[in-house]
């Protein structure tokens, strides 16, 4: 457990996490950290346990071992809806918005934990619409009809409505055109500048490394690399991790 008195204690500290689905274990020993105003990129091959790690941090999957701490407060046993109130936001893979609801309804639902009435909450949507003007024009359209890029913007906007201190994004560029991927990454970089800590899972490794402050690599449910991004850039460490020469 990190000490709360340490000034530089990380926003999110995951230690020795093990998790999975029922009897099937997908993550054996994951440790990572995210600092406020920084981006930790979580890499790994398909099936390495990245999504399970995010789901366990969000509380959707139970932690079978290890601990999750947010601002040095242990939240390992906390139910998922309370973690949202505690400041954890997860944008799931595959643009999991409420497709039958409109953009506006999706964003309102994003602010569900704010404890505001609907009228006040509607005003709070303005910053999200400013950030994603395309959403503002179509606010009453069923979100299932939006383009993939717009759905991803909506998914991020929805998570931001809860005012998270930690935002986790699971492959936000998945299935999007290259120009849209650049837009998503620019959004992620802009969010970092606001002081939010970001944990980013991404297949588009090059694009992710451009915004990364820290890189963690998972393989078969275990962390095999965990370094500042500056150490990884231009070195063979990442390729070594991916191709298994580190072990």
């Amino acid at each position, binding site marked *: 457990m990190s000490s709360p008195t340490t000034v530089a204690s990380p926003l999110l500290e995951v230690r020795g996490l093990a998790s999975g689905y029922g009897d099937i274990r997908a993550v054996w020993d994951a440790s990572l950290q995210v600092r406020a105003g920084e981006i930790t990129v979580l890499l790994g091959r398909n099936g390495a346990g990245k999504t399970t790690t995010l789901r366990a941090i969000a509380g959707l999957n139970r932690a079978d071992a290890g601990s999750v701490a947010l601002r040095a407060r242990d939240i390992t046993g906390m139910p*998922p*809806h309370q973690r*949202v109130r505690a400041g954890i936001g997860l944008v799931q893979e595959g643009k*999991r918005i409420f497709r*039958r609801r409109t953009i506006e*309804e999706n964003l*309102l639902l994003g602010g569900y934990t704010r404890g505001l009435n609907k009228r006040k909450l509607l005003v709070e949507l303005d910053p999200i619409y400013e950030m994603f003007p395309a959403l503002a024009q179509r606010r009453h359209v069923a979100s*299932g009809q939006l383009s993939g890029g717009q759905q991803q913007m909506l998914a991020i906007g929805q*998570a931001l409505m809860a005012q998270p201190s930690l935002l986790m994004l699971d492959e936000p560029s998945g299935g999007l055109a290259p120009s849209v991927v650049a837009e998503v990454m620019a959004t992620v970089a802009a969010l970092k500048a606001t002081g939010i800590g970001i944990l980013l899972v991404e297949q588009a490794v090059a694009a992710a490394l451009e915004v990364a402050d820290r890189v963690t690599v998972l393989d078969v449910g275990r962390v095999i690399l965990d370094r500042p991004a500056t150490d990884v850039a231009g070195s063979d460490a990442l390729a070594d991790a991916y191709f298994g020469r580190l072990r």
Partner: protein
Amino acid sequence: MTPIWSGLSIGAVYALIAIGYNVVFIAYTTFNFAHAQLMMFAIFVTYWGLVVAELPVLLIFAIAAVGVGLIALLEEFVAIRPVKGAHAHLVTTLGMATLLDGTTRLIWGDQVLKVPAVGSDATFTLLGGRISVPEVVLVVSVVAIAVAMIVYSRRSLTGLALLAMAEDRDAALLRGINVKRLALGAFVFTGVLAGLTGPLVGPKTFAVSTLAAALALKGFVALAIGGFGSLPGALLGGFLVGLVESLTGRWLGSQLPTIMVFVVLLLILMLKPTGLFGTTRERMV
């Protein structure tokens, strides 16, 4: 016109049952096969309050709402919460239904008991057909309740949260929605609603221990016609079943109403398998 008024008013009862099924379906993606029993219990409580204990009307509404709401609360803890999946709930809620049927018989016996109207029971002629005041009150109340629920589910944050939960439970959890508590609230609400509407339904159906079985069947047909999960569908499905039943009985003979109800059900499901207002479940990957 008399068979039409009669069909609409019994249809309102079916619609109420279908709405009860629907709210639980939206909240749990499962069915509460004891819902008609909750309604029946409320009707017997009304009989007891008006005829046996001779209580003031408002008190009867309150007792029925609180009492049946508590039964629903109990049911959620013993029949819904401990097991997962619609198949398991089929068994547990049918068990609850049997228990409530038996309890009703133990307390009130097997006789058909006439439930007086809570207000005027005058009959009058409307557009050439005979209709009673309680029937008008019943139809108007059910339409008003359904419309209010539809508006609430689309306009309020809690209603939105309920619809979101029905669409994607994990995603709802990630928005900070306490899905267990919200679902429990919806379940208890169906009990309270059955309690509040029991006194309106009683004069139409009478109180008899076999009532719930009949209401459950027709209510479920109304639900299937309207489409699982759709409140407007439940309302229209209920009226349609009531009208088909009443008009068939009037024009084709008294043996045929139930058969015709199922013929209509099959026809609609052949033309539109999801029901009139149902939507298919989809998920993008």
